């Protein structure tokens, strides 16, 4: 169990517009829905009503890509106000975003850009996470990003940066096991050691997703089934962090809801094995 008392919501799906009506009409058994924050901030009234109906039917969590928490630009207070209002309106169980920056000097690349893992960046991000948590009125969970370049100036590994950040900012973690695997495939590193370096009681959610090959790169496309190596890493993660709310991300070439649920169901026996192992211990 995480130190924040945030519940294990079971297995969930990222809400995609084409599935919203089907979910509302058929109410499939899902532990929770993850809403991409920015898609729901300035919705037309009709879509807003649909989102509220979904939030009344399922536990929801918000997952954002625009907090820009690592940037040297000032935090966007208007954005934070809107996110807080959305979370309040939908009764979101928690809010997450990424350990990254998306732009500087007012420009937004809309890419999750990597940070240099330096002492300065650590202090900077910790200060901003605390400010964001104050503005949001709730704990923020930060996700480990997939990154395709690394700064030679980094002074510590990413997992150590995250662990120290958690202590300094008292924030939670959203562990994306696919990102851990993709980064290791692209740049080397030991995914198991990465998991072992993260604090046990900070992980409140896990993402699983598929990746794809583009030339020499493995890309976190969220457009394919979860790879066997990622499921294995997921099992390792559950062994370390216990039963954690788990979400399947699928953002491009989105299959039917039934196909998504079938892919998500692959997590069930893994969670059962992890639970049995924990009970035995």
């Amino acid at each position, binding site marked *: 169990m995480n130190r924040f008392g945030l519940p294990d919501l079971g297995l969930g799906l990222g809400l995609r517009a084409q599935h919203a009506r089907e979910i509302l009409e058929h109410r499939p058994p899902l532990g929770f829905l993850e809403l991409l924050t*920015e898609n729901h*901030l300035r919705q037309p*009234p*009709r879509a807003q009503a649909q989102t509220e109906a979904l939030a009344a039917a399922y536990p929801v969590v918000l997952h954002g890509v625009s907090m820009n928490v690592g940037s040297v630009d000032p935090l966007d207070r208007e954005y934070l106000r809107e996110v807080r209002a959305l979370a309040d309106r939908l009764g979101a169980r928690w809010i997450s975003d990424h350990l990254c920056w998306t*732009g500087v000097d007012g420009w937004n690349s809309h890419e999750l850009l990597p*940070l240099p893992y330096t002492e*300065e960046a650590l202090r900077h991000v910790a200060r901003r996470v605390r400010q964001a948590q104050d503005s949001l009125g709730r704990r923020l969970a930060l996700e480990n990003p997939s990154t395709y370049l690394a700064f*030679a*100036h980094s002074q510590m590994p990413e997992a150590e940066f995250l662990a120290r950040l958690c202590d300094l900012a008292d924030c939670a973690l959203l562990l994306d096991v696919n990102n851990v695997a993709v980064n290791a495939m692209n740049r080397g590193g030991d995914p198991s050691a990465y998991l072992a370096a993260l604090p046990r009681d900070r992980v409140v959610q896990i993402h699983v997703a598929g990746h794809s090959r583009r030339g020499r790169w493995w890309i976190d496309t969220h457009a394919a089934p979860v790879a066997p190596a990622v499921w294995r890493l997921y099992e390792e993660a559950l062994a370390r962090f216990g039963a954690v709310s788990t979400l399947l991300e699928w953002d491009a070439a989105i299959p039917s809801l039934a196909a998504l649920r079938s892919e998500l169901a692959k997590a069930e026996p893994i969670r059962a094995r992890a639970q049995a192992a924990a009970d035995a211990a």
Partner: protein
Amino acid sequence: MRRRPSSSTPPPPLAQLQRTLMRALYAPRSRSNRAPRDGLALYRRMGALRFEREVAREFPRVRALLGDEEFAALARAFVASHRSRSFTLEGYADTLPRFIARTRGRSAAHALASFELALRRAQRADSKPATPRPGALAHAPGARVTSGPRRASVAVFQRDGRAAWLDVAAAEAPLLRSLLRGARVDRAVARTRLSPARIRAAFERWVAAGLLLAAPSPE
């Protein structure tokens, strides 16, 4: 960013590293179809594709009109000259109609892009109609007159939470435009050259469609 500095060298300030990377991401460079060789090239490619996909998402009718190849070239040119300053991509391509007018003239693509933009704005409009000024008429949320798919005038507005549109005769467009801008009915009517019978018929049509929320009271 590639060479590992000696451990005694303090890292450059975070602000400097971020500005350097941002400049590198947006430096003008010819586009290649080859797979990106380094991480920077990959971010550049992914970023451009994200914006181009957004343009395509917002203007599906223009894409259908131009065809995939020509639309992709249009989207690439638009993205190359438009960066985002917003936390959301919603509305990123709102200036595409103006961009088309500037680069291709007032073509069918421009008219269609203006129409699609008006549809999306109507869809996004607050569903509560604004209170009209004294002497003006209440109208549907997000209502405006724009050029339509066939370059004729159309009124675009929100009805039952969805975007709707109605063809508007060229002669009637100025009257409707001034009503939607909040003009007093008596002044808007006084300025038009339409016959009283035609004005009455136009009002009936606009009210029946849900574009105007009430007809003017007879005097």
